């Protein structure tokens, strides 16, 4: 297996990486770029902790070969805040105590961020469907839905 050169666009920055082709985006993010906000749990697409945004849509970085995402915009949880200013979704999660152990939070927040970008005023049902691919083992879903709903209402005002 020969090493290859990959150019990835992550959080607006360009990275040139020389690596083996059999690596997932998740491995590159965590092991090579030390962007450890993206978590690994099940490793088979069932839990959602490794969620990143690919051209604005949530996807599983554990099932994504890094070579498949060349020239695409990747956003990780590190890319949401602007300097010291948190993203409204992050602020809302803190405000509504939607974080317990925090392991699902990066995935939940990115998924919610993408949902609100595509649909500024989602209903509770739409919110629940959007985050249905993200598992919270603390089972704190009610607070998470509330945090997203708060922003949805803001969109309606």
């Amino acid at each position, binding site marked *: 297996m020969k090493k290859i050169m990959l150019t990835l666009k992550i959080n607006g920055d360009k990275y040139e990486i020389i690596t083996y082709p059999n690596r997932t985006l998740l491995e590159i993010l965590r092991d090579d770029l030390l962007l450890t906000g993206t978590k690994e749990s099940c490793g088979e697409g069932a839990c*959602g902790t490794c969620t990143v945004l690919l051209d604005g*849509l949530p996807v599983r970085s554990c*099932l994504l070969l890094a070579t498949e995402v060349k020239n695409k915009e990747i956003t990780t949880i590190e890319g949401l805040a602007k300097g010291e200013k948190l993203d409204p979704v992050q602020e809302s999660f803190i405000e509504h105590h939607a974080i317990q152990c925090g392991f699902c939070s990066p995935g939940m927040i990115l998924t919610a961020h993408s949902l609100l970008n595509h649909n500024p005023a989602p209903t509770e049902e739409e919110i629940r469907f959007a985050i249905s691919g993200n598992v919270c083992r603390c089972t704190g879903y009610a607070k998470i839905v509330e945090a997203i709903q708060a922003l949805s209402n803001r969109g309606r005002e």
Partner: protein
Amino acid sequence: MRLPPFEVLEPATLKNALSMLEKHKGKVKVIAGGIEIVGLMKLGLSAPPYILSLRKIKNLQGIKKNEGQVIIRSNTTLREIIESSLINDLFKGISQAANLVAAPPIQNRATIGGNILQNSRCMYHNQSELFRNGLKPCYKTGGDMCRAVKGGNRCFSVYQSDMAPALISFNAKARLEKTGSSRTILISDLFTGKGENPISIGENELLTDIIIPIPKGQYSSAYEKLRIRKSLEYPLMSSAVFMSGNKNGEIIDACIVLGAAGSYPKIIDRASKVLKEKKPSDKDIEEASRAALQQVEVADNLPVPASYRRKMAIIYTKRAIQKALKDLRKDRQL
């Protein structure tokens, strides 16, 4: 879970892709959304020397309507299908099936081609190498025993696609291309009937299009799926129903297809016969649903017992028939 070593092939045109498939025949796996192949490679269930990516091939995505049919290119994501008003207007059951696949982040990457060509699954097979190494090899891995059925003389793994039953209920076809030729066959003919190797497609062939004929007259469709959680699950049993009717409220034609009921989608001919050429009564619906049972071939190899799945084949078929019938009557005031 690390992936085994492989080289990535990235053809820029369909023609190049086909010649690469020909050249590396048997040693190459195609990656579209990657949902299945990456998972299988992680478990050590697949280790191809080459991975052929479709990402650079233009025009292998999209949905278009022409001359009485709708063509979905194979690399179209399930999200595109869910969001397509064309599909939702013409083929409700197909739209419903796509919407019930896993969860949105999977639908964002998973493709219709990948969903149809997925391998069959079994809870004794789709496991880590460590787990499998503790057991004797089964039919699926080249051995001569089945872990799910004591004394079983074949593989009982389950084909768990949501899209295939819904597409088959509409008589959809698949276009397969290889260097120098192509063929178009019914999706229901894509299956070998064997759990060991459920899909019958040549190693040098690429699925390029799904062709769905637009039914004539008044018709409706529905898809119902059994799963433990409301998301992130393969079907444990599912039923796709298509029916067309006339002005008198009679059913002219019906097609009922079960998913996750064996190693290929099962077309329940008897159920169609019971419903056809009449205004089905509750008793007819009950009889048609019970007919589903005759073709269910299930074993204790998924997270719920076979006995439960068998019962649910009746329930979910009934629900799908009722849903489609309600839709048919509502839309057309039959």
